[in-house]
């Protein structure tokens, strides 16, 4: 266990000094600052104002950039470390492969989750200073969703890093996977449904196994519990899951997917050449 925490700590230290982390933190911190600057808290959408409005906008933007950011930075730095000889040296030290892999996973999780979370915390602190109400329920639900999505894409990133032997291949794979998830949000899904006469159940299943779609729908559920903006498909979600059930699914499923991906990545890492 000591080696696992040592590796996690070393990975955090390495990441905090990396350029990608500075950019990553600036992007999410910058989004919150910009939302305040442009007066999102004063605007109104479907009855929401103040911090609720800001969190809704923040989570929508996060859906677009968080997964690809996590995927690309993870595969570039992990596969890049392998190429640059970091693995060759550090894995010559007496550390078990499980402590190394899971230590890096946990360290990286802290590093990718904290800036996104701290940006929200910053917004909460600022709002409380201004004397506005804090929607703690919404804040907790969004934290859970962000945690789940970060875990999910980090697991996928670690799997890709174990599969690809070079940073370029890893980056290409990561981008392809993100693009596939993205296209299956609407574009391909709708196209296939129309052309092939896809049964609605299949479309629903595809939506339920796409972590991006799950995250997106859950974010909608939180500010639009009747899912008016989704139209008829809202009936499927609300009838099968209920609002709370869907939020649980939206947190549990990405965590499970990320964990399975990470375990598969660990298996491949352990069985193959390390550097």
């Amino acid at each position, binding site marked *: 266990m000591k080696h696992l925490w040592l590796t996690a700590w070393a990975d955090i230290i390495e990441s905090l000094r990396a350029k990608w982390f500075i950019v990553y933190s600036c992007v999410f911190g910058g989004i919150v600052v910009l939302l305040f600057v442009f007066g999102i808290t004063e605007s109104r959408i479907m009855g929401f104002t103040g911090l609720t409005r800001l969190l809704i906008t923040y989570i929508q933007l996060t859906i677009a950039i968080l997964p690809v950011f996590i995927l690309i930075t993870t595969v570039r730095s992990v596969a890049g470390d392998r190429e640059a000889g970091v693995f060759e*040296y550090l894995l010559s030290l007496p550390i078990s492969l499980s402590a190394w892999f899971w230590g890096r996973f946990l360290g990286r999780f802290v590093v990718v989750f904290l800036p996104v979370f701290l940006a929200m915390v910053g917004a909460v602190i600022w709002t409380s200073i201004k004397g506005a109400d804090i929607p703690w329920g919404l804040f907790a639900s969004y934290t859970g969703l962000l945690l789940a999505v970060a875990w999910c894409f980090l697991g996928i990133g670690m799997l890709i890093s174990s599969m690809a032997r070079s940073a370029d291949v890893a980056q290409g794979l990561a981008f392809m996977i993100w693009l596939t998830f993205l296209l299956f949000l609407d574009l391909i899904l709708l196209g296939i449904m129309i052309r092939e006469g896809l049964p609605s159940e299949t479309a629903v299943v595809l939506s339920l196994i796409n972590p991006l779609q799950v995250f997106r729908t859950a974010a909608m559920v939180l500010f639009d519990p009747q899912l008016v903006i989704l139209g008829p498909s809202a009936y499927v979600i609300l009838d099968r899951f209920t609002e709370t059930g869907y939020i649980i699914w939206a947190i549990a499923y990405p965590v499970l997917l990320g964990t399975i991906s990470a375990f598969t990545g660990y298996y491949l890492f352990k069985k193959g050449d390390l550097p």
Partner: protein
Amino acid sequence: MIKFDNIKKTFRRTEVLKGLNLDINKGDRIALVGSNGAGKTTMIRCLLGEYTYEGQVLVNGKCPRTERELVLKDIGFVPQLPPPLKMLVGQLIEFSASLCDADPKEMISVLERLGLSFDELKARPFVKLSGGQKQKLLISIALGRNAKILILDEPAANLDPEARHIFFQLLAEKKDDVVMLISSHRLDEVAALVNRVIEMDQGIVILDDCVEDSVELDSVLQSEIKIKRADEAFAKAIKAWNFESDGGMLWHGQVAGPDRLRFLGVLSRYAAILQDIHMEEQKND
């Protein structure tokens, strides 16, 4: 102590190790030489348990692949290319010492003997150090723990003559207790450090021989070089070995015993202007 039994390693369709057989015993100090692509690095990575392979590698009867921690606890490794680690020097030493159950003070002590100040370096990122500083730090980590096997890949390539001499002294202090495997492209770079030479070519051992050398690892040769005429290029080359001269004709300095072949190799480039060479061995205190 170390046994390679019919090791084969293939990358895609290229067979890099073609049935490598080798026994390494306690007290062996081995120069592992061979051209690029001979399989030296692959062999080292198999020994470190970093590669999968066909055959069997055993270190004290243990497999480095399945019993990593037990095997690597006894191995100190210095890579040819320092990894681009961003962590601070102090953090790297703490991290390595914690993993190896070693005393970081031992590593710092070796670092200071190699001429670096830990207090000056501890707050600097490893990746920002010069090539020589990185090499010295990695040597300190490898030698500052109780390793019974030292695997050194071109260890002295980036060291200045003074640091090389201290490095040889450090190896001399350990030579009876540890197995050394020193990889190099050229035998003359490491000949004086070793008592056995293994040459590899295209994945197999093509030469396995003893090296007889009377020069001690920690000896120093008091040297005097006389040249026929002052020469700017020669002066620059000899100053790199910390030699001094009054008028540029007669040069005085010290050469570490194990470095003498390398030093003579440098002098051979200026054979036309050399008048006299005198080298006398002095036991280092």
